[in-house]
């Protein structure tokens, strides 16, 4: 039995279909990143799972319990918000204690004055404070417990928000871009911390982000969403190396994957500029396709080597690598090549070169964007089409 299963969830606002039937399953203790451009519905899906918004149709089951019709408070779900949503009038320790107090104390015991007279209340409060302190210590925020959110930095608030969400050991953990308000350095550091926390808690987690690098680096599996549909749910390596859809390929990876629109010739081969490529399987002659290859599977050779003739337009030196922006001579398409600095020696803007792709890394996508498993290979490269 999966720890969380979302079945065919739809949501629309008027004619605007935000979610077009999303289904996904998470295993116990799994970390799933929901990634996609803004407006793809990932945050809406998270809110529906949390119970903050209702779905039009579909079902959400977690830990064997049907959550679909439960209100947020009954779902035993914890969430970290992008804005952290800490209570501004409470100190860090009071913030962290809220979910425990709401669960462990009765409404009578929570009343000010009267509550403190009721039996048993003191022991429960003491236990809550112990849990808060333990949680704070494990997140290294025990020195901040008496501060209010206004007196903390962004990183500190983010930790308090994490502590508040984790302290009650929820059945499901939801995070809505918790790192996007942090500066770049802190963000990379916090990634590791969240993954670490997740390992220790072992609670299934849905993590929404628009940052593909964050998704790939943190998650066990990545769910790529585009305009209300789930395009692919797979391990990060699969998402990167074997995308099922052109939009997935384009969204994931930096710099963006190189794409060239083309059409299948009458004989089933594909013409790419001056080169003709032979697919493994047959492609329907005359159909529109897109050929794609990632920048690191291209290399640059001197003029005259077999490959695609191009001119260098611009170079970007990034330390461990060099990004070379080129334009193909034959069809004017841009090609981005990622090289090791040692391979980029002697390259200057304006220089004519030859781009050599690694044939087995070429991917083909159909007109509807779906991957065609007829990937072209450079090893079956035919002769120059013209001359």
């Amino acid at each position, binding site marked *: 039995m999966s720890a969380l299963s979302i079945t065919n969830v739809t949501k629309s606002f008027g004619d605007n279909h935000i979610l077009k039937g999303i289904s996904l399953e998470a295993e116990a203790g799994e970390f799933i990143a929901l990634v996609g451009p803004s407006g793809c519905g990932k945050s809406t899906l998270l*809110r529906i799972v*949390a*119970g*903050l918004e209702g779905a039009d149709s579909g079902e959400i089951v977690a830990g064997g319990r049907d959550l679909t019709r439960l*209100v*947020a*408070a009954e*779902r035993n*779900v*914890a*969430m970290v*918000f*992008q*804005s*952290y*949503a*800490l*209570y*501004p*009038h409470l100190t860090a320790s009071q913030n962290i204690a*809220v*979910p425990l107090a*709401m*669960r462990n104390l009765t409404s009578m015991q929570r009343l000010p004055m009267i509550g403190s007279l009721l039996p048993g209340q003191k022991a429960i409060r003491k236990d809550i404070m112990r849990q808060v302190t333990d949680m704070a210590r494990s997140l290294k925020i025990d020195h901040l417990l008496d501060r*209010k*959110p*206004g*007196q*903390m930095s962004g990183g500190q608030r983010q930790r308090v928000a994490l502590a*508040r969400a984790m302290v009650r050991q929820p059945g499901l953990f939801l995070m809505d871009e918790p790192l996007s308000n942090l500066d770049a350095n802190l963000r990379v550091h916090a990634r590791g911390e969240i993954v670490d926390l997740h390992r220790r808690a072992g609670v299934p987690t849905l993590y929404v982000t628009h940052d593909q690098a964050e998704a790939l680096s943190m998650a066990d599996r990545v769910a790529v969403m585009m305009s209300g549909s789930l395009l692919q749910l797979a391990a990060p390596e699969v998402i990167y190396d074997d995308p099922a859809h052109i939009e997935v390929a384009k969204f994931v990876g930096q710099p963006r994957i190189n794409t060239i629109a083309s059409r299948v010739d009458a004989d089933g081969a594909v013409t790419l500029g001056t080169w003709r490529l032979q697919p493994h399987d047959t492609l329907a002659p005359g159909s529109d396709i897109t050929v794609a290859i990632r920048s690191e599977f291209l290399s640059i050779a001197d003029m005259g080597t077999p490959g695609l003739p191009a001119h260098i337009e611009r170079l970007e030196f990034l330390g461990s690598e060099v990004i070379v922006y080129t334009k193909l001579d034959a069809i004017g398409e841009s090609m981005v090549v990622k090289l090791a600095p040692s391979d980029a020696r002697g390259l200057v803007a304006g220089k004519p070169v030859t781009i050599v792709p690694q044939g087995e890394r070429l991917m083909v996508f159909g007109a509807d964007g779906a991957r065609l498993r007829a990937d072209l290979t450079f090893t079956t490269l035919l002769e120059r089409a013209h001359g």
Partner: protein
Amino acid sequence: MTNTLSFGRAFRLTLLSLGALIFLAPYIFMISTAGKAQSEIFTSSLSLIPTQFFYLENFAKAFGRVSMGQLLWNGVVVCGLIFIFQVVIAIPCAYAMAKLKFGAARLLMALVMLGLLVPIHATSLPLYVAFDSAALLNSYTALVAPFSISVFAIFLFLQFFRAMPDDLIHAARLDGMSELGIVMRVIVPNAWPAITAFAIFSVVAHWNDLYWPLIVVSNQAYATPPLGLLFFRAAEAGDDYGALMAATLIITLPLVAAFLLAQKRFVEGITMTGLKG
């Protein structure tokens, strides 16, 4: 640079001081008159400082002829009850309209706007008839009830609550709070600037209100301070302006004192610094 700046500053200060003087002049004159003897008030010469200090005599008259304590107590009870009812009713109402989604929200908004447009003077006659037939004239109920639902308060809190982040309320729901719990534990503790701002409007308006008490109260025991002054003038003081000014000074004093004591909070409330962090 420094020269022009200091000139501009001096100019501004002069202008502000002049404005303050114009606004304060009646009050200052009132303080002055409260200390004058009857004979001095009716002389043709006008002096700000009384030639003979008659404060003690005038205050003694003011306290002696009407039960000043009762008037002030009525004012506190009426203003306090009105304010408490207004806040208790308006806050949940404004929360629901600002943060909950329900079908009639637009209709309710239209009703609130409509309520803002209708002054008490338009409805006072039917209200009077209603209180009369319910035999509730000359009671605290008649003074308080018509104002217990304040559309202005709903409108003010609505604007304030709309600016509160939705995530804060979502977090509270996930933490296990009921809607009432959210209002009590999250909204109210963060709405103090709005509540203070509204408190000023409400208390000042109802402490100084003469129109409505004049309609429903004829028994001095339930008179609010301005109405009490009216009784005082008509029945007791006659043309004894010294004693009248002393009485006026007494009933304006609580508001002035409250403002001076809580000046900083009041200004904060009016500028509505809002939610930080």
